[in-house]
């Protein structure tokens, strides 16, 4: 076998155990021999096509690429390991969701939305898993830590970027709802509703 760019990139993605950026893939080659970004992308697209009928896939996550076993095969693959994957409590998932969607966010702000204290052990678990980290301190009394999610979070949840998080359900503003009800005349309501279609809202509804 003659090592070529494609076989080197494939082997690296298979052996790395984590997502690799294009720069890291280029860094495998001697200076002057590294393929350009476009060539790396082309090779990855070729690999993706090669795997179309197989149990693995190339996936773009957290700004890099990795080769992973397709989700359809998890019923078989999970028999490889005795230990069952960890299940996370609702408290942990809600805390993580708030950090993911509202970052940077303080513990106090999380508690405000959830209505209960955020236990220290949840924050510690999330930090130990490498999914969240302190990105700064809020300029207010006590200078509380502000949390944000990490690359490891994106990698674990198979996300390309935070933009790929599922859309949040849209909120109805109660004040707005009451005000509108009070101020509009009955015939105005009819007219406005027929014309005032916001396509953005519709898309969001369909997606969620």
């Amino acid at each position, binding site marked *: 076998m003659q090592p070529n760019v494609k076989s080197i990139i494939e082997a690296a993605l298979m052996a790395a155990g984590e997502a690799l950026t294009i720069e890291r893939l280029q860094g495998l080659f001697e200076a002057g021999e590294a393929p350009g970004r476009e060539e790396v992308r082309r090779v990855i697209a070729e690999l993706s096509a090669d795997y179309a009928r197989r149990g*693995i896939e190339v996936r773009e996550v957290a700004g890099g690429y990795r080769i992973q*076993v397709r989700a359809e095969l998890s019923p078989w693959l999970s028999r490889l390991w005795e230990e069952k994957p960890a299940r*996370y409590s609702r408290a942990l998932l*809600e805390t993580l*969701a708030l950090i993911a969607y509202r970052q940077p966010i303080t513990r106090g702000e999380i508690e405000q939305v959830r209505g*209960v204290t955020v236990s220290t052990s949840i924050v510690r678990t999330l930090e130990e898993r490498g999914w969240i980290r302190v990105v700064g301190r809020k300029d207010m009394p006590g200078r509380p830590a502000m949390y944000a999610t990490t690359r490891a979070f994106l990698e674990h949840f198979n996300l390309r970027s935070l933009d790929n998080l*599922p859309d*949040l359900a849209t909120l109805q503003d*109660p004040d707005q709802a009451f005000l509108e009800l009070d101020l509009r005349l009955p015939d105005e309501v009819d007219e406005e509703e027929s014309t005032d279609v916001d396509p953005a809202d519709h898309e969001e509804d369909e997606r969620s």
Partner: protein
Amino acid sequence: MNASSVQELPHDLYIPPDALEVFLETFEGPLDLLLYLIRRQNLDILDIPIAEITRQYIQYVDLMQELRLELAAEYLVMAAMLAEIKSRMLLPRPPAAPEEEDVDPRAELIRRLQEYEQFKQAAEQLDTLPRMGRDLFPTLVSAPDCHPQQRLPEVGLRELLLALAEVMRRAKLSEHHHVRREHLSVRERMSEVLAQLSGERFRSFGELFPVDKGRPGVVVTFLALLELVRESLVELVQNEPFAPIYVRAR
């Protein structure tokens, strides 16, 4: 419609004590419990029958206290808040109330309930995302012949230049040693000539002049040789006038 559903509220609060404990532990806090009470009865979150919900909520809280479950203070705070909203809604509205008084006293509660529900859903969605180690597995092909390498440090031209500037500044020699571009190529050629002469061999003078660099190449080589002679790094040997000149490293 809402009124009738409130009338028909099932009085199903009795849950066997053992089960209740498990049941209550599944709530993530007062907002979660309130949401449960609202959703269980298919009520519109924007129009909560506050009196009935408050009654039910307080019944749960009383039960929790009776069972001496460790009750988070937040549950009691919420009970107080519900009672306050209820009393405000019971008060007759003054006929010429300023506009801000028109705001429904439930508004803040509704906002919080909605916001909490939004993230409760987000957490559920997060849990259904395909996850590494549960739904997806990274390939971990072994690489038995690969060994971690120590990478060589990178040096840029700028760092080199700064280092030189620093050493020159320290030595205060920059004025005496103004080396210009021309000189650099001469010094480069000096290195090349010396390399060619290594091993103390005699080389013919003419042989040292590159044929492919044109006149500038000849001039630079000549200057380099003169400099090498001046610095006693090479010697020129000529056996008799007009005989070939030989060059040797000293």
